[in-house]
C-alpha cells in the first residue's frame, strides 16, 4: 500500500492511497495477475455510513468487509491503514484472542470506531496511538487544517513512532509498508519513486489529479493494487477508482 497526505499552497489538505493486497496468494495465469487481487477488484465499493440520514463517515471498502481500511469523516479527519510486516504480527494477536486475552482491538475496527466517534484530529490521533491492537499497522491520519497530517507506527502494545507532516519535509508525508526511519526492502521500494514523483509534482501544482497520477506511476502502481482512493477531510469527499497495472508491471 502507499498512502500520501499533502497540503497545497492554500493550506488545503488532500489524502490519497493505493490499496495493495494479495501477495503470494496464487497467480492467475489467464489474467496474468494475482488471483486474490483480481477477485477483490469487482468487490470494491464506496460506503456511506449514515445515522438519521446524515453521513457519519465514508469508506472505500470491499463487499462484506465491515472494518475500515480507508475512510473520511467530513469536516474532521481522513484515515488510512497500511499493513506493517513484523514477526510479532497479527497471527499472535488472534492466538491471544483465542486464548481469552481480549483487551486489544482489531485494527480495522479501531479505524472504524475512530471515524465514528472522533470529533477532532487530535482526538483521533490519541485514540489511534493509545489503543492496544491485535496487529501491527501504520495509521495515516489527516485533518482539516494546515499541517494536520501524520503517520502513526504501531506495534501491538505501543506506538513506536508518530511522524508529523511538518517534520517529514513540509508539504507532504508518504508511507508505504516500511518504517519511515529505515530504508525499504530493496526489491519493494515504492517510496523512492513516489517521493520523486511528489517532488516533481510540486506543492504549487498539487491537486487530487496530481496525486492520482503519482499513485498511477509504476511501481507505486503494481500488480497488487486494487484501488486508488482520493479523500479530503474538509469537504468530506471520497473518490475511488479500481486500479489495474497493465503489463509490463511490477508484481508488488
Amino acid at each position, binding site marked *: 500500500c502507499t498512502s500520501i497526505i499533502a497540503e497545497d499552497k492554500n493550506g488545503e489538505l488532500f489524502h490519497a492511497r493505493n490499496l495493495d493486497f494479495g501477495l503470494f*496468494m496464487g497467480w492467475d495465469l489467464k489474467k496474468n495477475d494475482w*488471483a*486474490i487481487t483480481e*477477485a*477483490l477488484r*469487482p*468487490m*470494491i*465499493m*464506496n*460506503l*456511506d*455510513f*449514515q*445515522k*438519521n440520514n446524515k453521513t*457519519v463517515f465514508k469508506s*472505500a471498502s470491499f*463487499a*462484506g*468487509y*465491515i472494518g475500515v481500511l480507508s475512510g473520511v469523516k467530513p469536516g474532521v479527519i481522513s484515515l488510512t491503514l497500511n*499493513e*506493517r510486516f*513484523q514477526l510479532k*504480527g*497479527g*497471527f499472535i*494477536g*488472534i492466538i491471544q*484472542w*483465542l486464548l481469552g486475552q481480549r483487551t486489544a482491538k*482489531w485494527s*480495522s*475496527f479501531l479505524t472504524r470506531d475512530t471515524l465514528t466517534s472522533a470529533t477532532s484530529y487530535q482526538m483521533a490521533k490519541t485514540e489511534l496511538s493509545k489503543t492496544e491492537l*491485535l496487529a*501491527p*499497522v501504520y495509521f495515516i491520519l489527516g485533518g482539516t487544517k494546515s499541517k494536520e497530517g501524520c503517520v502513526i507506527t504501531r506495534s501491538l502494545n505501543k506506538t513506536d513512532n508518530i511522524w508529523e507532516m511538518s517534520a517529514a519535509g513540509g508539504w507532504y508525508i508518504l508511507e508505504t509498508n516500511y518504517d519511515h526511519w529505515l530504508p525499504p526492502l530493496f*526489491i519493494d*521500494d515504492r517510496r523512492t*519513486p513516489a517521493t*520523486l514523483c511528489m517532488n*516533481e*509534482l510540486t506543492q504549487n501544482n498539487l491537486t487530487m*489529479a*496530481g496525486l*492520482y*497520477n503519482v499513485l*498511477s*506511476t*509504476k*511501481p507505486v502502481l503494481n*500488480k497488487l493494487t486494487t*484501488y486508488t482512493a482520493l479523500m479530503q477531510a474538509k469537504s468530506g469527499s471520497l473518490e475511488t*477508482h*479500481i486500479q489495474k497495472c497493465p*503489463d*509490463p508491471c*511490477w*508484481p508488488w
Partner: protein
Amino acid sequence: FVLKPFDGKCVTDAYPPKSSTTVPNLTINLDLPAHDRWKEVAIKYKDSMKSLIGDLKKLVGSVPVVGDLIIKIIDNEFEKIIPTLPAPYADELLGMADYSGINRGEILLYNIFYEVFTV
C-alpha cells in the same frame, strides 16, 4: 513480471481515469439493528464473497505442515470468536453470514485476513 529499476518517469496523464474504474456507492444505515445493516451488500455480493473466501481457504490450507490444522480451526473455532467481538461487529458479522448464506467462521476469516496474515 518486471523487476527492473524505476525508470524515473512519473505518470502525468492518468487522471481522469476511464469510466470503467468507477465503483458503486452504497449506504450503510446505522439506525438499523446491526444484524440487518449489511443485508443489501450480503445478498448482492454473496457469490463473489463465496468465491473469494473459497480461494482464501485454499490458500491457507496449502500452508505446509499446519495448513490442515488452520482449516480445522477456521471451520470449527472461528465461529465461536464472533460472539466475543465488541458491538456492533459481532451482530454485523452474524447478519452478513445469515444474509449471504456463508459459514460464520469463513465470514470472520475474510474480515480479519488483511491484518492477521501480515507475516
